[in-house]
């Protein structure tokens, strides 16, 4: 019996996607980041309105864009980032909205009983009076699932549910999913982890660049096939000039950081070598520790153990100013939050990092305004930052121009190391090409470049070497031109290439 069916095209995120889920079925939705999985789920759940197409639950068409209606019809969603109130108890998180607002009581006894029932039926052990803050990630997720079950959902969507779970917790989750399905629920599982999908799903839907590329039964699938489907067949190889490498500029040896430093994922025994004249690409789904790595190299985090050497000399103190002086440039992934100051003018943003530069300000601290303007003009001209006026606030710039400004600003400092984190995220074709050429030119100038990206096309286009970040660890670096996308896809999804089943 078909429960759900949808056909729609939305923006550029989802194009003409149609599929259906049956009662008691587990459908896995697979695809790399940016493929459109989350957008699709948000459409089903009512957070976004599709530009065209319909969603029908149990044969009844659903109103789009209405989360409350979605919940009422029986769709439940467990988001990747939990919607829980940390300071409240499990019981309180479940009870919100379930009693009339002006009533006298919360009916906690009845609720507790129901929670116990569901707990037992589906293997979701939890203490109703525990504070959410004190729960482990696995328990928090159990709570999220409990919330959907409490609402008597028919369809439950799980968005990357195993992202931060221990192997034991993953097993528990799958037991829960099986029991959910046995009682007649349908489950849509979004994931990029091939192992898990192959373990637990009935059918697999593969998305790429917003389109459905495969809709198959589990039995027909295997890792190699799936990896191939995710990343697609065509591989663009750039025409790269023969590079001249220098000795190592940056050496990371057995670097470890704790999960509390910067990223929620701690770094585990990282070894990395960056050479001048080389672009080292780091692939991996976001959230595997990339941010911590970037911040470490930028001087923002001090490693718990291991050491970092710059041009052969061990570095002992970690602070941004010092690293900048050494010649390390960091282009952060949230360019609007960490990169530019939206309310300050383009001119001011151009010199934001240059207040110690004798060209910009006297040693005593007086700004040389004419020189600032000239400096800004130069950056805009040299790096093609298009703007009507230099005194406009920077938030008026398009994403591409912001990025060009940021990279240009750093390049003017003549850095030896450039870290670019998701440099072309959210940019249009033209801007992407511009950024790539800036990075390639920087490489030709002999700088060492680290590019962290989720975009595999980009990765293979510009990198000389590639490694993959997974769960806080970095794989050994391999020559980009010798690497198949499929291999990278497997590494990104946690499998080793040797395990590929032909």
């Amino acid at each position, binding site marked *: 019996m078909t429960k759900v069916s949808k056909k729609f095209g939305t923006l550029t995120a989802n194009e003409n996607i149609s599929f259906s889920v049956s009662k008691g079925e587990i459908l896995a939705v697979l695809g790399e980041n940016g493929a459109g999985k989350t957008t699709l789920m948000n459409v089903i759940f009512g957070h976004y*309105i599709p530009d065209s197409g319909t969603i029908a639950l149990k044969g009844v068409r659903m109103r789009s*864009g209405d989360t409350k209606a979605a919940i009422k019809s029986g769709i439940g969603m467990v988001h990747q980032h939990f919607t829980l109130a940390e300071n409240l108890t499990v019981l309180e998180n479940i009870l919100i909205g379930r009693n009339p607002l002006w009533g006298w009581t919360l009916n906690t006894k009845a609720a507790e009983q129901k929670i116990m029932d569901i707990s037992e039926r589906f293997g979701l052990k939890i203490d109703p009076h525990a504070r959410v803050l004190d729960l482990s990630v696995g328990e928090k997720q159990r709570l999220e699932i409990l919330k959907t079950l409490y609402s008597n959902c028919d369809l439950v969507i799980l968005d990357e549910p195993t992202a931060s779970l221990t192997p034991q917790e993953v097993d528990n989750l799958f037991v829960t999913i099986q029991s959910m399905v046995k009682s007649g629920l349908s489950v849509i599982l979004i994931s990029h982890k091939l192992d898990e999908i192959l373990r637990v799903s009935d059918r697999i839907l593969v998305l790429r660049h917003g389109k459905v590329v495969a809709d198959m039964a589990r039995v027909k699938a295997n890792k190699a096939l799936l990896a191939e489907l995710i990343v697609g067949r065509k591989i663009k190889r750039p025409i790269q000039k023969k590079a001249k490498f220098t000795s190592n500029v940056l050496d990371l040896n057995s670097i470890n950081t704790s999960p509390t430093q910067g990223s929620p994922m701690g770094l585990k025994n990282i070894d990395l070598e960056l050479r001048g004249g080389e672009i080292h690409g780091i692939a991996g789904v976001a959230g595997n520790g990339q941010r911590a790595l970037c911040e470490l190299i*930028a001087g923002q985090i001090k490693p718990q153990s291991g050491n970092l050497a710059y041009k052969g000399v061990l570095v002992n103190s970690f602070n941004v100013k010092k690293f900048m002086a050494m010649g390390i440039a960091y282009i952060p992934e949230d360019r609007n939050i960490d990169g530019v100051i*939206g*309310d300050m003018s383009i001119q001011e943003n151009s010199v934001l990092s240059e207040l110690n530069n004798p060209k910009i300000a006297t040693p005593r601290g*007086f*700004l040389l305004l004419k020189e600032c303007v000239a400096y800004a003009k130069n950056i805009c001209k040299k790096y093609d930052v298009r703007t009507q006026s230099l005194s406009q606030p920077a938030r008026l710039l398009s994403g591409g121009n912001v990025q060009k400004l940021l990279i240009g600003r750093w390049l003017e400092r003549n850095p030896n190391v450039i870290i670019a984190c998701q440099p072309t995220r959210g940019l249009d074709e033209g801007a992407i090409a511009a950024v790539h050429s800036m990075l390639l030119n920087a490489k030709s100038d002999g700088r060492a470049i680290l590019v962290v990206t989720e975009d595999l096309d980009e990765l293979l286009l510009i990198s000389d070497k590639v490694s993959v970040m997974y769960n806080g660890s970095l794989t050994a670096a391999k020559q980009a031109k010798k690497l198949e996308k499929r291999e990278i896809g497997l590494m990104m999804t946690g499998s080793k290439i040797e395990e590929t089943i032909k």
Partner: protein
Amino acid sequence: MRLEARDHVPEWLTFLVPILAIFFSLFVAAILLIIADAPPLESFYYLIKGAFGSKNAIAETGARATPLILTGLAAGIAFRAKFWNIGAEGQLYAGAIAVTVVGTGAINLPSTLMIPFLFLVGALAGAVAILPSVILKQLFKVDEVVTTLLMNFIIILFVSFVLDGPLKDPMSMGWPQAASIVDSGVLPQIMERTRLHFGFIVAIVTALMIWFILGKTTFGFKIRAVGYNSSAAYHSGHSVIKTMMLVACISGGLAGLAGVTETAGLKGYLTLDLSPGFGYTGIAVAMLAALNPIGIVFSAIFLATIYVGADSMSRAMNVPTYLADVVVAVTVLSVLISLVLTQYKFYFKSNSK
């Protein structure tokens, strides 16, 4: 109703903010006057007359504006860096105490040295007064709003203590006040036979200096950057902590200067009622001027006008003088509304997702 941030706020619209705010607060004043049985137009006439009607009146307005410019600058520069210094009142008194300690006979220098010396001491005292709050914020992440505020009460009690004891003027016949500032330290009058004193010039010069620092120095640049987006400032290599601490100390120092002008310029000696809330009014001054140093001078003069004018207006029309305080309070709130109105577009359709 939905709010959507405007992409770009045109210049003229930002100028509209203080004007709208002033009109609105005068409108509220008119309503209160009607409730108080006083014809608004006639009352406003007395208000203007009281503030500008004679040489003496203008001098009074100037004298009133002096501390307001300084406390306005104190609030303005702190708020720019998002450091909510509500302790200007206490920092003002700290400056006044310091000036009394060194300026009532302990040290004797010729005028040309004494006066700058007093200003320096006052500023330092103000900076010291704000230090506990800054340190608590940096070390323990304690909100500075409440700590600077509570310090006001503590410092004013301390003033009461010193006026009862160590700094009490033996010649004041039991009235709690301190000895007079020595002649060489008293700020000279700049308009004969009025209370307008050199402090007014100092205040304006200070405003110009702050304007210069904010706009033309690297330090001012850092203050603004940290205030707008401390994360981006950090990523560009700036020390957010150091900047905040310096800003806070400067803010305290500016308020301390107000203590100097009132003690060594206006009154001549320290009393408990030296400041009728200048520290708090300074916040209104700064908000009205959108934290702009030059604007603060005008805004301070405007609010001084209200106070001085309301004094004589209330005598003429038998209306409680608190009207002036109401106008000031309404100004703060009207500025907030005007800011929202100019920074956001309003949509009145129902929210569609």
